[in-house]
């Protein structure tokens, strides 16, 4: 399937609509970058939650604020139609994402709420921060479960 798509892609490229394809590629890279940034800020929060990094209220608060800000990026620029894993290379986003817009929005909102919860909690105390990790993990995981292809 993918091989066929690649072939059509190559033919379309030869046909001269290269612009559209690289825009998709850029969007794929950008959204993966957004995901990596989530993970990056979580690295500090999670490290504190686990006791691997000493708890520091200011640093935790700043990381949580950044994380919350990241959830507010305009997603229409990141998920263009036709950039799913059946149509494009280098992505694990399932086509189902584009078929279930309402549910995806729900999951994005759920992440926004969990991140806001972490923003409230992180600067308060270590216990509050630890308590906010579970809902965040649940929000990230729920979307991956539904809309990300398994790691091959």
């Amino acid at each position, binding site marked *: 399937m993918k091989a066929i798509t690649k072939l059509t892609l190559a033919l379309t490229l030869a046909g001269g609509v290269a612009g559209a394809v690289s825009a998709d590629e850029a969007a794929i890279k950008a959204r993966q970058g957004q995901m990596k940034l*989530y*993970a*990056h800020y*979580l*690295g500090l929060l*999670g490290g504190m*939650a*686990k*006791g*691997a990094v000493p708890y520091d209220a200011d640093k935790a608060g700043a990381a949580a604020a950044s994380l919350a800000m990241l959830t507010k990026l305009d997603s229409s620029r990141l998920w263009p139609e036709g950039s799913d894993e059946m149509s494009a290379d280098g992505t694990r986003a399932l086509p189902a994402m584009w078929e279930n817009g309402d549910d995806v929005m729900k999951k994005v909102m759920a992440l926004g709420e969990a991140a806001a919860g972490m923003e409230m909690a992180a600067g308060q105390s270590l216990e509050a921060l630890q308590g906010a*990790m*579970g809902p*965040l*993990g*649940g929000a*990230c*995981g*729920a979307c*991956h*479960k539904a809309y*990300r292809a*398994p*790691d*091959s």
Partner: protein
Amino acid sequence: MFKVAGYVAFAMLLAGAAFWWITTPERVRENDIAGLAGDAVRGEAAFWAGGCASCHSAPGAEGDERLVLSGGRAFASDFGTFYAPNISPDPVYGIGDWQAADLVNAMRHGTAPGGDHYYPAFPYTSYARASLQDMVDLWAFLQTLPASTVPDTPHEVGFPFSLRRLLGGWKFLFTGPDQVVAGDLPPEAARGRTLAEGLGHCGECHSPRNALGGIDYTRWLAGAPNPSGKGRIPNITPGKLDWSVADLVEYFTSGFTPDYDSAGGEMAEVVQNLAKLPIEDRRAIAAYLKAVPAVE
């Protein structure tokens, strides 16, 4: 290839079944558990440790819907596709007319109230290691859940595996040891062993199986192909997994891996269940994973 394995399996199952028929199936009677009072609060913990909702809730159920055990999820295997039945308290479509001893027989012996053998897609080979008290508590909890009138979906299994009676042979051949990691363990890891080898049924996914579908106990938790056909289920022995205890506890709590990606595949639901256990239990499972023999 599978055909040959299938006939060999059939022959062995027959031989095993012959033996099974001349042995009396083990059954627990209501009297045997008369002294045990079920506690629904403890039963809820056993329910999440056992992950019953991952299989018996409706396909795609989320949140509180996971407490409606209407069945219907499909499980692919080398032997066909199995569908989890309705185990809600409905007396007609579910198991509302059962008694505690029936659940004990199902979980401990893989035997239905009428005497039929269950398919091991229902992971009773692991559940058999749970205590009678756990099962009686679980029964008390199951009765507090909503009833559902969704009818069962018949399994799609071909001959010879469609003959339930032959499963007696399977059971005889593959009933596992009481403890997989035998011997004395420190108390926390020992508690983890009870949870992980029993109700947690980690080995059902994380251990490889032989041609007949039995768990290969020499490669306990050393990883296996995913029966869904996609990817592999990872090796979680210290031979491969180098996560710290704190990393493991975080993973079982929030689903975050040490690089803050989230648990995927079937493990995402396992984490949803483990997250509902007391943190001591998650620590115990982590301690157990550190004590399991390393397999490369």
